[in-house]
């Protein structure tokens, strides 16, 4: 377009210049420097002739001398004019002109002297002068002719020049017309395109207007200066201002500054990340009341400036509903808690006088009594003990339900524990005519990391029940590991009365006693199996029952207990292990795998471990007990690791000064900085190895207050792994071998099998949900869980890929993250193959 204009301009300029040239030429012709030149030149001829006639007259009649003089003067004047006139300058230079003219000029100059002289002298000279003039006729004629030809040629030249200029002008005009035609065509084309565009724009605008007008959310647009340029119907209803009242005002009309003078929204020119665009504000109605609202902000280029769009939704009702829900939940929780508290308190309060009574009955028994009195006393004592038993059951239930029951893990010899229980139950069993037997695990391993008291309670209840409901039968207890790497399973089998199939589903519920006859035969609160179920669940295991009425029942308890090596094998000589020996450690981690691994690593180094499966539980435990170190996973449902750490720090609980170490599978640099700011002493990046764990524990002051940010550097072992695995090995054998070293081959193998199964399922679930574009998924949380596990098991390439997806999610590139998901399937296939290939595990072993 600009080029076209330039060309047109140039052409127009050319035409203007040419036209001026032509005008000048025509002007030159009209200003006619030539005009009467031809006349003047021909007059030379005429006037010379006239002079000659006058001279001849004067020769005959001397009184006519005056006329001759005048005629001479006229001729003189003519010649003089030719001699000096600028118009004749070119002529004077012509060789055909000059000789003739010179002779004429010489004549007038010469003769002028005589003419100016006395009459008589002149008279005497007249014949001579007359002769002279006659001799000049040819010259005068020559000049006249010369004038004609010379000026005719000049005129021709000028005419040719004008013609040429006119042709040029015509050509240029033609070009201009062509260019104009081209322009016109282009303008017409542009017009058509613009018309189409305009129609399209109008359609779009109409559609947009409809969207804005019918939006249920208030839509307000601002220009660069921050004045309101659009205020839709919903905004009118939300704020009570008419549209014309709002237009031209500042946004503070409806979103005022806070009481302390702060703007609630960021400056318009600020570029906002995706997660900053949505925020809550207090908006103000025309009538003066404020209400909570959610705004989302967007800016777009519009013409020279930008247009800023504020979408706003009144949250009053939503917040009120949320508040109502929270209140309802809080009330319900408070009620539950009150009930649990009441149970605990009541049980305690009942236990104290009951103890007094039982003690007194014992004292009374040692005094002299009549036989029937002693019988009464025996019944009282039995009832008292039964009552005490019931109260203890209730207390256990309340304690387990209130979440105050934490696992105190320590090495336990399960076989010994079961033998104790059997020994304890043998008298009752024999009284019922039963045979009670125990079969230890085939591999003879029985030392596990567990809470001995709880395990004992489970066994007491199960064996106790079996003894109670079996008469003249067999009761067997078996300890086994389902596979070399599987969980520990305890089976209690009896040949008692059994349970009806329809009752099987509810025997683990609270206060369940089956049929009356059964109840008569065996007294109980019906809380026993409820307690067992709770404890098993608390330990992460499960309990099942098979039963045939009349034939007997089989209870199977499956517990993910970590098998420990026999004491003789325990200490793995290591400076770090020795130094950091015997710490009490709280592990807060929601991922079962990871918690298990960390726990077992710690137990293997003879630390005392307490576990919490979420942030709240972690905070509660830290409140009640003092731990030397708290290992805190960052990403957990409910309150996350950061919040938990802050609560522990800010509280005045037993562990408020204990160092907290963040566990994370993957973190951006600024996140790890944030961890430290939140009071984390250090950050442990998964996979966590026994070595890095030792270094971190050894580097920490055992209970002194620590200085944030001054913690141990990332463990060297981790660094080494990074250096040696730059090309993203599928499976980091170092991590695997470390896992084996920490947990033992069997345990590690078992865990890997579970890891493969678990990840398989999670991945297929994730791919399926991510492939549905409509599905809203919490990609980041789905991925994060796998990231952690992949790191712990040394699935390096998978871990890297998952981390990248997580990064994308965290930096607001949800769509990119989704696009990365499909590739996971193939990567996982390769990774799983690597785990399953016999070579890799053997290699991992040999790396040790």
């Amino acid at each position, binding site marked *: 377009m600009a080029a076209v204009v330039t060309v047109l301009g140039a052409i127009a300029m050319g035409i203007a210049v040419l036209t001026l040239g032509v005008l000048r030429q025509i002007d030159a012709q*009209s*200003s*006619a420097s030539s*005009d009467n030149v031809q006349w003047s030149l021909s007059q030379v001829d005429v006037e010379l002739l006239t002079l000659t006639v006058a001279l001849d007259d004067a020769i005959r009649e001397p009184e006519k001398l005056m006329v001759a003089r005048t005629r001479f*003067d006229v001729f003189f004047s003519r010649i003089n004019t030719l001699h000096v006139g600028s118009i004749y300058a070119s002529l004077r230079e012509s060789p055909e002109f000059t000789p003739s003219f010179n002779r004429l000029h010489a004549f007038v100059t010469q003769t002028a002297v005589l003419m100016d002289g006395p009459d008589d002298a002149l008279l005497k000279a007249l014949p001579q002068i007359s002769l002279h003039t006659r001799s000049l006729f040819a010259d005068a004629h020559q000049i006249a002719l010369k004038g004609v030809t010379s000026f005719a040629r000049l005129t021709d030249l000028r005419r040719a020049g004008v013609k040429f200029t006119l042709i040029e002008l015509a050509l240029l005009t033609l070009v201009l017309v062509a260019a104009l035609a081209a322009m016109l065509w282009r303008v017409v084309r542009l017009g058509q395109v613009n018309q189409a565009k305009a129609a399209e724009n109008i359609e779009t605008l109409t559609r947009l207007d409809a969207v804005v007008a019918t939006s249920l959310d208030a839509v307000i647009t601002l220009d660069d200066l921050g004045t309101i340029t659009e205020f839709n119907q919903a905004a009118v209803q939300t704020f009570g201002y008419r549209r014309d009242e709002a237009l031209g005002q500042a946004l503070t009309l409806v979103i005022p500054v806070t009481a302390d003078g702060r703007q609630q929204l960021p400056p318009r020119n600020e570029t906002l990340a995706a997660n900053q665009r949505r925020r809550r504000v207090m908006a103000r109605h025309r009538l003066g009341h404020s209400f909570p609202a959610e705004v989302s902000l967007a800016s777009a280029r519009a013409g020279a400036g930008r247009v800023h769009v504020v979408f706003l939704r009144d949250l009053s009702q939503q917040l009120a509903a949320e508040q109502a829900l929270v209140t309802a939940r809080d009330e319900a929780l408070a009620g539950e808690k009150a009930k649990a508290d009441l149970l605990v308190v009541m049980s305690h309060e009942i236990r104290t006088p009951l103890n007094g009574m039982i003690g007194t009955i014992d004292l009374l028994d040692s005094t002299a009594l009549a036989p029937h009195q002693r019988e009464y006393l025996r019944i009282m004592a039995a009832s008292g003990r039964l009552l005490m038993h019931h109260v203890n059951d209730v207390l256990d239930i309340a304690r387990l339900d209130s979440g105050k029951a934490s696992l105190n893990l320590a090495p336990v010899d399960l076989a010994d524990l079961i033998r104790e229980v059997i020994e304890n139950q043998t008298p009752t069993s024999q009284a019922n005519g039963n045979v009670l037997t125990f079969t230890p695990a085939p591999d003879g391993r029985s030392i596990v990391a567990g809470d001995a008291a709880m395990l004992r309670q489970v066994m007491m209840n199960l064996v106790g029940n079996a003894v109670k409901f079996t008469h003249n039968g067999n009761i067997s207890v078996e300890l086994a590991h389902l596979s070399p790497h599987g969980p520990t399973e305890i089976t209690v089998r009896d040949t008692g009365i059994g349970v009806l199939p329809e009752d099987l589903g509810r025997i683990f519920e609270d206060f369940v006693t089956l049929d009356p006859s059964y109840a008569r035969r065996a007294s109980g609160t019906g809380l026993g199996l409820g307690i067992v179920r709770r404890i098993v669940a608390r330990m992460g295991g499960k309990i099942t029952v098979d039963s045939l009425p009349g034939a007997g029942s089989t209870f199977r308890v499956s517990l993910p207990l970590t098998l420990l090596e026999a004491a003789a094998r325990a200490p793995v000589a290591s400076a770090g292990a020795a130094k950091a020996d015997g710490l009490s450690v709280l592990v807060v981690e929601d991922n079962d795998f990871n918690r298990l691994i960390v726990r077992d690593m710690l137990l293997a180094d003879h630390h005392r471990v307490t576990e919490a499966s979420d942030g709240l539980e972690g905070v509660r435990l830290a409140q009640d007990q003092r731990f030397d170190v708290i290992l805190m996973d960052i990403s957990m449902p409910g309150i996350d690791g950061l919040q938990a750490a802050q609560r522990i720090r800010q509280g005045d609980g037993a562990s408020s000064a204990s160092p907290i170490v963040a566990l994370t599978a993957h973190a951006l640099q600024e996140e790890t900085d944030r961890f430290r700011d939140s009071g984390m002493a250090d950050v442990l990046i998964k996979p966590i190895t026994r070595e890095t764990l030792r270094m971190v524990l050894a580097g920490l002051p055992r209970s002194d207050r620590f200085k944030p940010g001054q913690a141990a550097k990332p463990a060297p072992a981790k660094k080494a792994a990074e250096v040696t695995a730059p090309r993203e090995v599928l499976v980091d054998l170092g991590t695997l071998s470390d896992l084996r070293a920490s947990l033992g081959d069997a345990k590690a193998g078992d865990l890997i099998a579970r890891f493969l199964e678990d990840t398989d399922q999670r991945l297929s679930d994730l791919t399926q949900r991510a492939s549905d574009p409509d599905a809203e998924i919490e990609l980041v949380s789905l991925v994060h869980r796998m990231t952690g596990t992949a790191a712990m098991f040394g699935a390096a390439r998978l871990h890297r890929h998952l981390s990248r997806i997580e990064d994308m999610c965290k930096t607001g590139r949800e769509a990119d993250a989704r696009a990365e998901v499909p590739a996971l399937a193939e990567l996982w296939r390769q990774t799983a193959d690597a785990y399953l290939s016999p070579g890799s595990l053997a290699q991992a072993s040999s790396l040790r």
Partner: protein
Amino acid sequence: MFDRGWLRAGVLGLVTAALSTMPGFGQTLPQRTGPTILTITGLDPDAHPGGAVAFDLAMLKAMPQATIKTSSIWTEGPHSFSGVPMAALAEYLHVTDATVRLHAINDYSVDMPLSETEDDAPILAYEMDGAPMPVRDKGPIWIIYPYDAGAEYRSDTVYSRSVWQLDRIDILR
């Protein structure tokens, strides 16, 4: 017309016209004493005996005067020409709206409508550079326009009316 003339004179600086404050229009001129240099014929015989008036130099000098400084195609370089504006002469003679025929000693003649004269151009110049003009130098009277003042003064018509050696003006009725 008068104003425009002055304006042009001022702007271009080529024409310096000075209308004399000497004997006013219609005033009687001195008696002719010197040789006649210009004869006017074709006048109203009632006002002028024989319909003719003869002027000597003194009479011309007694009329409103104007000076034009200009170059011409017939001379070399610029010269200062002084004389009586044609319009002033016509007014003096109470001739309006007529065409005059200008006659030269060399038998040249050309017609000029008085309507095409301006207040100060052309002039009937009788002095060049302050000296009277002999016949040999295109005297005694030369019709002069301010040729340098504009292209309109360099047309064929103007050149044809620039009569030198003028000695008679015939009023055509």
